[in-house]
């Protein structure tokens, strides 16, 4: 009897997840930063859906999470911003802090997210995100 109830509950849960997966609702992606590296470096998200990125900086130094195309990053490699804020695709993540930003990608494509603090990109703070149409 208990086994039947368990199977039914599992089926209901699976069904709920499946329904949620069919609807274009908001999604959350968590990216941790540890020892100046992103723990997630290859991500795929759907086009036209609000994506909330939860950026968890586990380091005692500041980091950045800037996402965009090649031209965007070329500009930021020589930029002069002391800090970023107010633009969802340009986020400063202070030491040992968590920051959230929500982005809806209207077009499919591949973007990079990079920390442009001096030396951080060369150290490996680079990830890629594919927006699927």
């Amino acid at each position, binding site marked *: 009897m208990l086994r039947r109830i368990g199977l039914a509950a599992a089926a209901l849960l699976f069904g709920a997840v499946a329904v949620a997966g069919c609807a274009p609702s908001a999604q959350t992606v968590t990216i941790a930063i540890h020892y100046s590296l992103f723990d997630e470096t290859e991500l795929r998200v759907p086009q036209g859906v609000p994506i909330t990125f939860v950026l968890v900086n586990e380091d*005692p*130094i500041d980091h950045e999470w800037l996402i965009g195309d090649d031209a965007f990053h070329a500009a930021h490699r*020589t930029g002069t*911003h002391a800090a970023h804020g107010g633009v969802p695709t340009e986020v400063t993540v202070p030491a040992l802090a968590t920051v959230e930003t929500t982005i809806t990608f209207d077009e499919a494509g591949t973007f990079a997210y990079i920390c442009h603090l001096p*030396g951080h990109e060369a150290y490996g703070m680079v990830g890629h995100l594919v927006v699927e149409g």
Partner: protein
Amino acid sequence: MRRPWLSLMAATAALLVFAAPTLACGGLIGPNGAVNLLRTTTFAGYHDGVEHYVTSFEFAGGGGAFGSITPLPGIPTDVVRGGDWTLQRLILETDPVVEEAFLFRAVAADAAGGEAEVLLETTIDALDITILRGGGDEVGLWAKNHGFRLPPDAPEVLDFYADRSPIFMAAAFDADAAAARGQAVGDGTPVHLTIPTDNPWVPLHILGLGKADGEIVEADVYLLTDDRPEMLPNAGAFGQSAGLLLDHSAPATDGLLADLRSDVGMEWVPDEAWLTKVVVDTTAGDLTYDLAIDASGAGAPSAIDAGFAPFGPDPVPRAPVALYLLLAGLIIVAVPLLMERARGGATGGTPPLAGA
């Protein structure tokens, strides 16, 4: 038997960090950043459980603020201005021709919860010295909040040291103040720390901080011990894989010891000693260790101090799981056999003789 003091070590220049305002976008380190402070020179000695640590910061002109963070093996009881010629005299002893030699060459780093605990603060000339105690996160956060810009590998390197000794020296060098004091280019400010500890070691791994894996790290380490020191990596491995070269190893001359002893704060230098110079010449990616020195006389430098083994209490000796499984298997097989044999013995049975 010589006097009981065992080892005197020269330690590293550490992390140089440019303390200009942090800029978020890349490529904005000031054009004169990490140039003004040419090099950090460090010497440390160990005698009767007390380490004497001498570091010199040299002013190379220009303006701005710079700093360094150095891991220490213990909490200093005193931080004062060092003598004027100790470091130069050691160099003269082993490299009399090379006038531009230094104990440690520049380690330029293009840099950058709770803060570390401040144990001691003092100012020596244009240097603001702070002794900190804390984990890697705490020390890193303190440095960040005090204008140090740590490079991206700093979090991992700070943890590497904090796991073994959570004591660090942060030195902020104000080049403008140095110029205002009339310090000329090339003038050094020696700092002498007195550190009670029973376990000296020379931090080498931190010399690669802020460098790409393939960048060359060059440094000189001077040791003065009452006997030939036991080190890990040991001298037998020097020259090839370890990236270390045993450049000098001989009894210290009377002249050297007398000269060292005559410098300010160096009266503790003994009458006899063994002088060793180790040259570090490797890449930052390969410099993953420190130089451990056995101060007990047992001839067994610590793998933990060398960074070869993780820090922590000695594990309780345990038989491996595989051995337990093997023993369990033997019991499962052997017990029925023994019981069967015992039953046979109880009935008086004996193996039949062949042909019986």
